[in-house]
């Protein structure tokens, strides 16, 4: 095992000086000794970084603990309890003493950051004039520039933080700044930039609905939904446009939710047309949407297509019939309840029958008296007000 070593690196010299017989050690032992030393150094570094991190975290906590009450006090006094605002003076004309937010306490980066974070926190809880006043404070103290500067940083996460701050504070970002980011290679940055674009763009906020090919994830949908439904002054388009023409299934599914939220009944024909889609997940979403619209026009078609559907769509059809609840298809529901061998189908049929309330009283009695034990149990389950699902 004794391999002579010719090269004389730094380590060799180091070891020869410190370990008397190092040269004569077998290679394995040499490596072991070397790695032991590296491990010892790593352990020491780890200890010191634990210590340093703890100390830094301690300082941060202590500082924030001290500054938060102060920020709250200022925001309460000069924004929440602003006398002009209370007198219903228009927001633009309210006298704001922004100089208090420019004092020495808010010079350092972490102090500015703390102030921004706290203002965003306030904004999450309050809207209207107060919220607009907060935006004014943000702009007039130049904190928006602080956030803007993050957009110019290299790392995608700084950019995301910048965007989140600016949008949370209801700021406008120029299209030229935000548009390139909507095509970023980083998924998160792309999503946040699009979200911001919808919120802030004056021109065509829903532009990327037309162009994006990638699926819109559930998380992004949540984010967009909130942005779209809470942004003031956003002109809401007719979502039927995308329901009919978009080739991106997740955009279609998302537009179904939006059409429903804005009760765009004029979209119903497009939605009914969408029942022909080949993707059964999307079809299930479509049926669900029609049910929530209580679209009576769709009933016939739903019943008609029922038997060719996979279970997830069948369940949605049964639910939809219960929501629409015209009573025209009670017999269908009843037959399905008695016929099906699938537990979930029977349960949903029963639920939908019960949703017909007065229309179905007699039918329920009838079913209860003749039902098998399991079917009776399903009916009772669905009728029991103590059981939610």
């Amino acid at each position, binding site marked *: 095992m004794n391999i002579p070593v010719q090269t004389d690196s730094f380590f060799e010299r180091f070891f020869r000086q410190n370990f008397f017989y190092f040269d004569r050690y077998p290679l394995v032992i040499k490596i072991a000794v070397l790695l032991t030393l590296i491990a010892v150094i*790593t352990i020491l570094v*780890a200890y010191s970084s634990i210590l340093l991190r*703890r100390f830094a975290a301690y300082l941060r906590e202590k500082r924030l603990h001290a500054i938060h009450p102060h920020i709250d006090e200022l925001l309460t006094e000069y924004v929440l309890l602003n006398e002009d605002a209370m007198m219903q003076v228009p927001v633009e004309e309210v006298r704001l003493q922004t100089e208090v937010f420019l004092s020495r306490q808010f010079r350092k980066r972490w102090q500015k950051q703390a102030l921004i974070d706290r203002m965003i926190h306030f904004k*999450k809880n309050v809207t209207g004039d107060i919220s607009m006043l907060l935006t004014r404070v943000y702009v007039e103290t130049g904190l928006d520039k602080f956030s803007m500067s993050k957009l110019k940083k290299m790392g995608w996460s700084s950019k995301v933080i910048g965007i989140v701050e600016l949008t949370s504070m209801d700021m406008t970002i120029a299209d030229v700044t935000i548009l390139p980011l909507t095509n970023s290679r980083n998924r*998160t940055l792309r999503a946040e930039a699009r979200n911001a674009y919808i919120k802030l763009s004056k021109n065509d906020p829903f532009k990327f609905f037309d162009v994006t090919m990638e699926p819109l994830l559930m998380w992004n949908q949540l984010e967009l939904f909130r942005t779209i439904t809470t942004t003031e002054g956003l002109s809401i388009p007719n979502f039927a446009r995308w329901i009919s023409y978009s080739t991106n299934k997740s955009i279609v599914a998302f537009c179904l939710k939006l059409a429903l939220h804005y009760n765009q009944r004029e979209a119903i024909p497009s939605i009914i047309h969408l029942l022909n889609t080949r993707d059964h997940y999307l079809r299930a979403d479509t049926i669900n949407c029609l049910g929530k619209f209580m679209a009576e026009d769709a009933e016939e078609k739903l019943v008609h297509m029922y038997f060719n559907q996979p279970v997830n769509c069948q369940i949605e059809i049964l639910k939809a019939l219960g929501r629409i609840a015209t009573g025209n298809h009670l017999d269908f529901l009843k037959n399905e309840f008695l016929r099906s061998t699938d537990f979930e189908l029977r*349960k949903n049929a029963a639920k939908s029958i019960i949703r017909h309330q007065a229309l179905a009283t007699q039918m329920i009695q009838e079913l209860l008296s003749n039902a098998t034990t399991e079917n009776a149990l399903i009916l009772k389950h669905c009728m*029991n007000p103590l059981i939610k*699902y």
Partner: protein
Amino acid sequence: MEQPTLIEKITHFFESGIFIYGITLLISYSLLAILSLIAILRFQKEDRYVDYNLLITSKIPVGISVIAPAFNEGLTIISNVRSLMNLNYPRYEVIIVNDGSSDDTLEKMIREFELVPVDFAYHKRLNTFPVRKIFRSSNAAYSKLTVVDKVNGKSKADASNAGINAASFPYFLCTDVDCILNKDTLLRLIKPIIDEPRKRVIATGATLRMANSCEMDEGGITRVRVPKRIIPRFQEVEYIRAFVLGKMGWSAINCVPNVSGGLGLFDKDIVIRAGGYDPLSFGEDMELMIRMEAFCCSQKIDYAVRYIPLSLCWTEGPSTVKILRRQRIRWARGLIQLMSQHRRLLFNPFYGRLGLIVMPYNFLFELIAPVIEAVGIIYYIIMIITGNINTPYAIMLLVFVYIYSVMITTLAILWDQITYKTYKSWRETFSLCLMPFFEMLIYHPLVMLFSLRGYFNFITGQKHSWGNMQRQGFSNTPKK
């Protein structure tokens, strides 16, 4: 040169075998450490701006069923159920499965939460011992709660399956009634599922820790502490290493072998189609995970299992060697049982990373590690006795292995501190940092012996004390 004798050949083969084995093990630990660091830093980066409130404001948030089996938990059941009902999530239900408790667990719940038996259409998709009654609260304030009362099925798996049958939502959180959850657990665990572009995330998990010396009340943990007693403290270190360094590293390359039974969020559809928990398994959580992954491979579902580096669950760990022994013997039996059950997956390229990474790793470095270690030690002792050893070299190698293991564990503690400054005082952190030095000398040999005992029991087919003891395994150690 002389021809080497047969004995020398064997010794040489043996030595180099162990040597390669050891080196691979050490390298894989280092790789895990690096992978987990990358994953943690990435998580940290994202977590700075993620607004979890989004889920709360959502109109139709994803529903989650929280399933917690309870067996003879009369002392703490009320506060535990209360804490489960006050999680920070807008749409979830809590299903407590009373697994035929012989104490007043059920009575207490009935009284406190005003429960009444209801005609519940219980859909038996997974086979379990019979369900006696299902209760709901007559007080609408507790409308989240469903209590399933069933005949004792002698295993947590059976009780969990009954809970899954009663669950109404597409995802379920599997936990233990005596686990204390962080109030944001559901928000945190659902995020990786709904924010995943390509794969279907079938399970997510997070770090578990020891609840032993923590201060807590109905609302959860009020003050995290390092366990005061030595055995739980070793386990705290062990858990940090296993979760923060191990599972996070595996998560980075989508090779998570196990989502712990104490805390895991699962895709119900996949769990049911894969067959649910196996009541005969001694390690039902890992067994289910492997089966789910194999199921996904066979169905061509592009799956992922994700871990997040936050500590979301605190569980009471064994506080004495005796209880620890019982737990570890059970775990070891579970592992060997699982490996023999699913041996067809091993090195099977059809199962992709499951067959080529997860199973081989767990076979080589989890299952047979204690055996190799024990053989190695015996071999060394023989060599020392026969004088066939170069003592200084042997000592150097030993020191190396010792320092290396200390380093890995210390890194795990550091990674953990990166995500969150868990302990309040540096004194506690320091006391934790000391543990790696003793772990190799005290705790590790114990665990190794218990594992060997578990294998022995499995091979000789010795009956494990079935019955209620079984659920005492993991987190059900007696309360003080």
